């Protein structure tokens, strides 16, 4: 279980070369898409298609890493790896955790 997400604005901005404009744009896009990304992961898991779960987890991993959420990205990577191995059997909890993590990050970004 990942620890609570703490928004490290300075480190994200550092990675974006201090560009506030790009940072704001990234936050807006994340917030616009977060529900769709979460739903896409759940739907992929429900359909039992491991390759789609793997891809959606990969996308979420990228999104979380963009906001310096190393713990969340590690959770997504674990889901991605299990899906790649075709092992969806015990992924229900992990998928749920990942959806919660997305909402947590979104809330932190909104509070900003």
């Amino acid at each position, binding site marked *: 279980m990942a620890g609570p997400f703490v928004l490290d604005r300075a480190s994200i901005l550092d990675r974006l070369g201090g560009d506030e404009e790009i940072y704001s744009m990234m936050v807006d896009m994340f917030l616009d898409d977060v529900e769709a990304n979460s739903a896409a992961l759940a739907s992929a898991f429900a359909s039992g298609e491991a390759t789609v779960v793997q891809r959606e987890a990969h996308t979420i991993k990228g*999104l979380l890493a963009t906001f310096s959420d190393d713990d969340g990205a590690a959770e997504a990577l674990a889901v991605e790896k299990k899906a790649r191995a075709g092992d969806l059997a015990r992924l229900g909890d992990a998928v749920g955790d990942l959806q919660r993590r997305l909402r947590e990050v979104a809330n932190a970004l909104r509070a900003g």
Partner: protein
Amino acid sequence: MHTVLIIDDSDINLTLIKALVLKLGECSPVLFDNPLKALEWCRENEPDLVIVDYMMPEMDGLRFIGAFRALHGRDEIPVLMITANDQKDVRYEALLGGANDFLTKPIDRVEFSARARNMLSLRTGQKFLADRAKHLEKLVDERTSDIRQREKELIFRMSRAAEFRDPETGAHIQRMAHYSQIIARGLDLGPAMEKLILEAAPMHDVGKIGIPDYILLKPGKLTPEEFEVMKGHARIGYELLKDSGSEILRAGAEVALSHHEKYDGTGYPQGLKGGQIPQFGRIVAVADVFDALTSERPYKRAWSLDDACRFLEDGRGKHFDPMCVEAFLAGWEDVIEVRQRFRDEEIPQI
């Protein structure tokens, strides 16, 4: 302005990379969230840099790079592949499969800018070299063409020098050279050989330079001894032109030596027979005799075209190679056109 193609199925990544590309300056990003559509675009357009994500539905980054590299002229365009930190094997595969470098996610602006700029510098260098190579090629073509033109002019003037000592004219040289070309075409020798004989045939009588005036310009019939001297012009022409570095002059040497050979072996200087006579010699023999017969000279009237044709036909297999006569007669419309174009009073350039 550099065209940077960005392919990623994630909108947020496309937006981020686009923003970073615009920050580089002098770049115009082109975005695709679907690699197959990007590949279609690449068939008609040439990007200066490709930035492609690894994991995408329908076609992953590795397969995209393979397909992109297989397109014509796309083998050197720099490609950056975006991978996650944990995908070391993918990065190796990408480098082996045609990616020039990679970016790791999450994207870091400093790393992105440095790698993208390196790739764009590489592209600028490639374009500079390609432009320079094209420019040099054009320069060499122009210089070669100048030299060839000068070579042709010198050959024409040298041939004219020989003809000036003779009642024949510059127009005769042009006509017989073009008749030779018509025969070469009829024999299906190909454009390169047609051009070569057109340029070499004018040298057929260049050896007349070495014949004394009292024989060359004698108004009456030559004595057998004088005729023997006259026959020497074939070998003199050959000696003048042989062993040249120029293909045209070497062909000219062959024509000079062999244009008085006869198909039945009764010609001179070597008395060669049939296929022993070089093909250019057999061709020029027909062209030269036809023009001599149909031209007016101080000592003779011009033969009619019918009479000259009959002479050629009667000479098949005796004086002339039958196939050369046939090729000449088959190109009759062109023969008439050449006669019209190069009249004795005018001497147009080749």
